[in-house]
């Protein structure tokens, strides 16, 4: 069981940026809520670790696919919200289309035809 879940997180890691872009395409959000949204989208099968989230967000922001702003919470630490940019929306559509092509191809290559 343990092995299975670590294999799937290895496979997911390469697509983490697109997965985060999808969450942000549904609205601006901050770190913990992004992790929660991804857990919910996976029906609890996948939980993103916080360090991986920060690494991805930083990369996406450097590529200008997302931008950030601070929330105005009155109590507790300030939340940093992320917003999808125009370029980010385009990048998301491209990544999704590329994934669909790859998935079809890999299916075709891996599944034995009876």
């Amino acid at each position: 069981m343990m092995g299975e879940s670590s294999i799937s997180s290895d496979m997911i890691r390469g697509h983490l940026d697109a997965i985060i872009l999808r969450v942000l395409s549904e609205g601006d959000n901050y770190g913990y809520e992004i992790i929660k949204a991804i857990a919910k989208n996976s029906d609890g099968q996948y939980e993103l670790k916080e360090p991986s989230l920060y690494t991805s967000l930083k990369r996406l922001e450097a590529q200008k696919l997302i931008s950030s702003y601070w929330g105005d919470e009155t109590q507790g630490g300030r939340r940093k919200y992320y917003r999808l940019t125009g370029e980010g929306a385009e990048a998301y559509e491209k990544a999704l289309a590329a994934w669909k092509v790859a998935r079809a191809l890999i299916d075709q290559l891996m599944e034995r035809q009876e």
Partner: protein
Amino acid sequence: MDKIQQHVDRLFRPYKGSKQAQELKQEILSNLQARVADMTMSGVSREAAISSAIANIPSIAHLLDEKPRVFLYRFWVEWVQRVLLFTLIAWIVTMPFRFVGNGTGSNTLLMFIALGIGIVYGGLLLLKRYDRKTGGMNVQAALRLRKIGWLLWVLLMGVSLFYTTALHFGSNLWFSRPIHISGPYQFANVAIDYLKPFVTLLIPLALHMVPKLLMKYEVGEEDGCTE
């Protein structure tokens, strides 16, 4: 929330003064607080929620840029200025050595070092046109270098103090001949022999300032940076 605050403070202790780190700290803190609030809402005990939140983020070293962009010129000007100041202070403090005779050499050497650094500082001030020049500087390496500097210095001081003691008081221990400090002049000579090695304190001090200054002159999000 105190335990979380403590954990986050501990994670970020080496990066005090870094803008980049302060922003990340705020973000991590608010996310951990949100996680604990959410878990306690769904029935997890507060203690368990806090320890699971903390376990989620054990270290932050790889989340910060190894080489953040720094205003190079401003960094070097302030560093050289501070080293110059420390050298001048050391020069002034060691002046009384001259009255005794012992230690005149160290005092003269300090004067020349201060002069040399002064010339470098003057040269730097002439290069004002590079004021907005930035470049990547390795803060982690500077932190390591600082640690090594202090370690070597403490070691050196240990050896030196042992050596001076053996030289002056060895005869008392090994040959049971009582030591004669026959007057203030002899006393001053012995005292200066002990104090002289402390002049090398300048080296770890100079290294000590590097990481802090690097973080001070880090290019923040609001500075428009020029390559």
